[in-house]
């Protein structure tokens, strides 16, 4: 069997890449904060499903949580359509409400069960190797690796199959509608994939760092390139980098793994941002010089 440290490392990379993949289109559709909303609201879904099922390991919890993600998007749209509340105010209202419902349910009804708010909030990737998949006394490794692999393949399949549609709907929704692709269907299916990814990832890294992994690598790639397929590959590469460097840093300094991954993401973004600013300004200077000459 693999060493737990290597298992955690693999898990970290898989989580980072699957979040990144679902984040690319979210960022391009100017819905970065929706990842924040979805990842918070999931708590309500998990709590309500837990009330219903009473078993923390039930797969229904994951389904419930993923559904809540989509419900969040729907509620935000509903509030927005009244034209009484701006989009970002409605995002802020909906997710804080659902999150509060989740916290209240957990602290009232799940006090004795292992559904600790801190664990949910911060996630602990270091504990995932303890929860192993054992079939007929044979150890197949941590369960989390299988779950996240499934989610990663879902992401890859979704983007591979609907690449054209996603691209069209993201960059020219009017044309997409005219050609008969429904932006609404693409929108909600994307939100579904994002929610499922967030659910899978948040057990490992907690829901605020889901946001870091979904938003930071694509936006960093966005600074580097303006080609969609390049952007996807670069952000996946950054995701892998975050997974490896983040975990190793956490290992060396003995700090929170999820936090360290987010910090590394922030550092990578900062470096790329500074380089792009510098390049832009030197490029501008060059052009001005050319004009003078």
């Amino acid at each position, binding site marked *: 069997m693999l060493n737990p440290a290597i298992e955690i490392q693999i898990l970290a990379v898989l989580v980072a890449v699957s979040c990144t993949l679902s984040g690319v289109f979210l*960022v391009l559709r*100017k*819905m*970065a*904060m929706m*990842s*924040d909303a979805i990842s*918070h609201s999931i708590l309500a879904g998990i709590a309500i499903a837990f009330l219903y099922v009473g078993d923390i390991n039930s797969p229904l919890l994951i389904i419930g949580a993923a559904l809540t993600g989509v419900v969040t998007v729907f509620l935000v749209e509903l*509030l927005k359509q*009244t034209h*009484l*509340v*701006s989009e*970002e*105010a409605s*995002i*802020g*209202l909906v997710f*804080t*409400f659902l*999150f*509060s*419902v989740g*916290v*209240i349910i957990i*602290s*009232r009804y799940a*006090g004795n069960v292992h559904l600790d*708010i*801190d664990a949910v*909030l*911060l996630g602990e990737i270091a504990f995932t190797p303890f929860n192993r998949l054992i079939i007929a006394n044979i150890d197949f490794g941590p369960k989390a690796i299988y779950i996240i692999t499934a989610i990663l393949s879902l992401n890859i399949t979704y983007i591979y199959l609907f690449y054209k549609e996603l691209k069209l709907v993201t960059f020219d929704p009017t044309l997409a509608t005219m050609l008969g692709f429904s932006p609404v269907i693409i929108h909600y299916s994307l939100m579904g994939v994002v929610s499922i990814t967030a659910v899978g990832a948040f057990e490992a890294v*907690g829901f*605020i*760092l889901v*946001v*870091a992994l979904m*938003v*930071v690598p694509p*936006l960093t790639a*966005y*600074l580097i390139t303006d080609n969609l397929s390049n952007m996807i590959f670069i952000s996946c590469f950054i995701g892998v980098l975050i997974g490896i460097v983040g975990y190793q840093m*956490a290992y060396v300094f*003995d*700090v*929170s793994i*999820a*936090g*360290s*991954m*987010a*910090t590394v*993401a*922030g550092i990578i*973004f900062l470096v790329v*941002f500074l380089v*792009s*600013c510098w390049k*832009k300004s030197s490029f501008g200077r060059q052009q001005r010089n050319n004009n003078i000459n």
Partner: protein
Amino acid sequence: MLWGSYMLNDYTLQMVLLGSIILGITSGMVGTFAVLRKQSLMGDAISHSALPGLVIAFLLTSQSASYILLIGAFAASLLSTFIMMLIVKYSNITYDGALAIILSVFFGMGMVLLSVAQKLPGASQAGLNKFLFGRAASILYADVIMMLGLGILVLFIIILFWKEFKLLCFNNDFGESLGLPMMFFDIILTSLLVISIIIGLQMVGVILMSVMIIAPPVAARQWTNKLNKMILLAGFIGALAGVGGSFISSIVPRMPTGPTIVIMNFIIVLISLVLAFERGLLSRIIRRKQKINSILAKQILFDCYKSFKKEEIISIKQIMDNLILLSAKKKKQLRYYLLKKGWLLITNDKTEITKKGLEEILERGVLCA
């Protein structure tokens, strides 16, 4: 009554109630500007990025007194808004992308630092954990005094720069063209936002604090179109939700204060959205119905006027039969509306235009064509 006086004599509850009133008023008022400037989610980013500041202050001083931690939080939050501004200005990343980056990266750094702080020997880390979800019961007299001081400061600055802030919200470019330092006012207003968020960290926590900025102004906006009324109303609603939430959470066992306040806020927003006098959904539906009725009624009046000129006799049944698209219920409503207006004299086989109806036609002139 006895029970109520018992509740009010309870020290913890007194502090919680005072704290929630101060918090509600300040965040509601400052939030008004944030919501009007479409910066609602800025509060979310600011409150999340307070975390590393809190922990650094704790690590540096190894004290967990609120005011020291909150100075750290203030510095970190201000830094985060500054970086956010730089990102938006110097790259093609949109505002909400910058928000998401700052929020998650700062919170991640906070978690790294928190895991360092947890390992310090003998360091009671309880002082830090309360800032994640807020622990209203941990509020002391000194904290309330500090909140009050900061609240008064915020209020004073709002009154001082009232005109300038108003300009910033509604017509920034005009302010620039007058040569006013709008950038300076922007920074002041953002600092006020940071201060009012920090006031609430101990009570509602970094995760839910943003709602105290968004909900009261959104609710207040539905009831009025005036900035001064809106800001007062937002302060009142914030205090109301705060008091309601803390009361409920103190009565019901195992009911966390922060989330309860959030839910109270949300309920007030929903009520305002539905019931508000002019903008509300209910009044919108009613107004729409009346509009349809009045258009149809005028059409009928016109039909009667035409037959009156031709000296024909037309019954109400004939008129109604012409309106084939309307359901029977709608026709009944329409007939009631006509009767109420008193434009037509309706008997079984004949409709006549009354004097009032004629006046309506001639006065409005709509139908002369």
